[in-house]
């Protein structure tokens, strides 16, 4: 099992007491694709970040079990964590505009991430970078190598991010809203590319998003989170038969091109959902 999470809790100390953002999340991932879906504030990003221990200083993580690739995340020292981050698990964030270095050419950035984990000469690294850019289907990778991030489009920037994350051959890819900053056509392209690369390389994927139908196209399983808990976990193919009112609500409140509704149903929340 690549990822094993049992009863994960993340809490923050505030002036008025402790706030529990993640309240007892459990799941396991092998070499498969898991989608985590929920509204903002549902704790989906924190769950993924807790796995890499990339949380703010004041966050407190507890869990019955939190392991990645056989390493106990709760007990590992910083050195061991550095060996995991990037190398064993790649992290793709929402907006390439903010996650790429604006004053470094794309080729050098990809080469740097390759060299950091694999060693080798500068020249080898640059060749590897060209190859990686080619793998994420950038046409004319040599030309793109010499460009700066502001000179490429959002979709291209996100491809570059994916290329950087793939450089050390990680076992798991965590994508936190990788396409929310992109428009619909590019969105589908990027998700298809990610799905394809993950399947081809036999990696695991955690795809975090707020778009439930979209995620179901690119994942094997979907976990629906609300207010720090997993409300329902179901296989992507059976989304239409979802049982939980929250999942149904999320699906219903989307406007639809083919099934027009005069008025969109608004999600009504039930306090009983949070009593386990």
């Amino acid at each position, binding site marked *: 099992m690549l990822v094993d999470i049992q009863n994960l809790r993340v809490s923050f100390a505030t002036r008025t007491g402790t706030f529990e953002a993640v309240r007892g999340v459990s799941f396991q991932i092998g070499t498969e694709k898991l989608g985590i879906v929920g509204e903002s504030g549902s704790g989906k990003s924190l769950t993924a970040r807790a796995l890499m221990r990339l949380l703010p200083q004041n966050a407190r993580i507890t869990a019955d079990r939190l392991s990645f690739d056989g390493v106990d995340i709760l007990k590992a020292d910083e050195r061991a964590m550095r060996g995991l981050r990037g190398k064993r698990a790649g992290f793709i964030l929402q907006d390439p505009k903010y996650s790429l270095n604006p004053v470094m050419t794309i080729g050098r950035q990809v080469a740097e991430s390759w060299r950091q984990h694999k060693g080798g000469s500068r020249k080898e690294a640059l060749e590897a970078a060209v190859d990686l850019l080619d793998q994420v289907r950038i046409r004319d990778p040599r030309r793109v190598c010499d460009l700066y991030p502001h000179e490429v489009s959002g979709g291209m920037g996100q491809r570059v991010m994916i290329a950087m994350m793939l450089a050390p051959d990680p076992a798991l890819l965590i994508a936190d809203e990788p396409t929310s900053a992109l*428009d619909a056509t590019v969105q589908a392209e990027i998700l298809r590319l990610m799905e394809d690369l993950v399947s081809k390389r036999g990696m695991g994927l955690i795809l975090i998003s707020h778009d*439930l139908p979209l995620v*179901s196209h690119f994942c094997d399983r979907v976990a629906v989170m609300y207010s720090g808990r997993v409300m329902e976990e179901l296989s992507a193919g059976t989304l239409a038969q979802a049982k939980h009112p929250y999942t149904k609500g999320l699906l219903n409140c989307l*406007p*639809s*091109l083919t099934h027009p509704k005069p008025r969109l149903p608004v999600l009504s929340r039930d306090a009983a959902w949070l009593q386990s």
Partner: protein
Amino acid sequence: MIEVEQLRVRFGDNEVVKGVSLNVPAGGSFGIVGESGSGKSTVLRALSGLNGAWTGRIAIDGESVGPRRDKAFFRKVQMVFQDPYGSLHPRQTIDRILSEPLLVHGMDNIERRIETVLAEVALPNAVRFRYPHQLSGGQRQRVAIARALIAEPEVLLLDEPTSALDVSVQAEILNLLADLRERRNLTYILVSHNLAVVSHLCPTVGVMLGGQMVEVISAEDLRAGKTQHPHTSELRALSVDLEEPA
């Protein structure tokens, strides 16, 4: 209400909008869809007076307007932006944000107007003396809509008003926009890359590609797949494909 003829916008040597024409009747609502870089937001910015470097003809309410607009125009036409985090002043209270358009236009009864408009966008009165960072994304977008409404405009220009929001909040905002249009007989132009959102709110949709409006289609024809231009068919196919759960 809104007439645009042969609108062209150029940034340096790069022509971004290449002769776009559109017509929206009073109380109507027109949607513009297209990929990023197709020039859809640029059309909106030229219409709103945020960008003066355009040629062609723009008329609001039968009156041609130039690159520079008068005060009456800015009262008549208001805009709501994509990012509710970036479009509100972080150091002004909601009360201050909402009273600014009233002060600019010399309108009276500030107290009453703010209370009414907050009720209209379904925000509690307690929000009035909070700062934007104390509100959620959906509440902030409601404040942005309230700010646009408070000067009693006739036209609302909406630039991706829901793309930064959760789907559950998006539903609430879209319902709110539909109600407001009915109640105040507003005219909308909505720009979005989401075909489902646009066709939900707008009976007529214009499709932009490379600075040109390649097709103007009714939402019903779009739903039924009676598209003329290959780009429209492409956008529709993708939208239909991704909207159904797998």
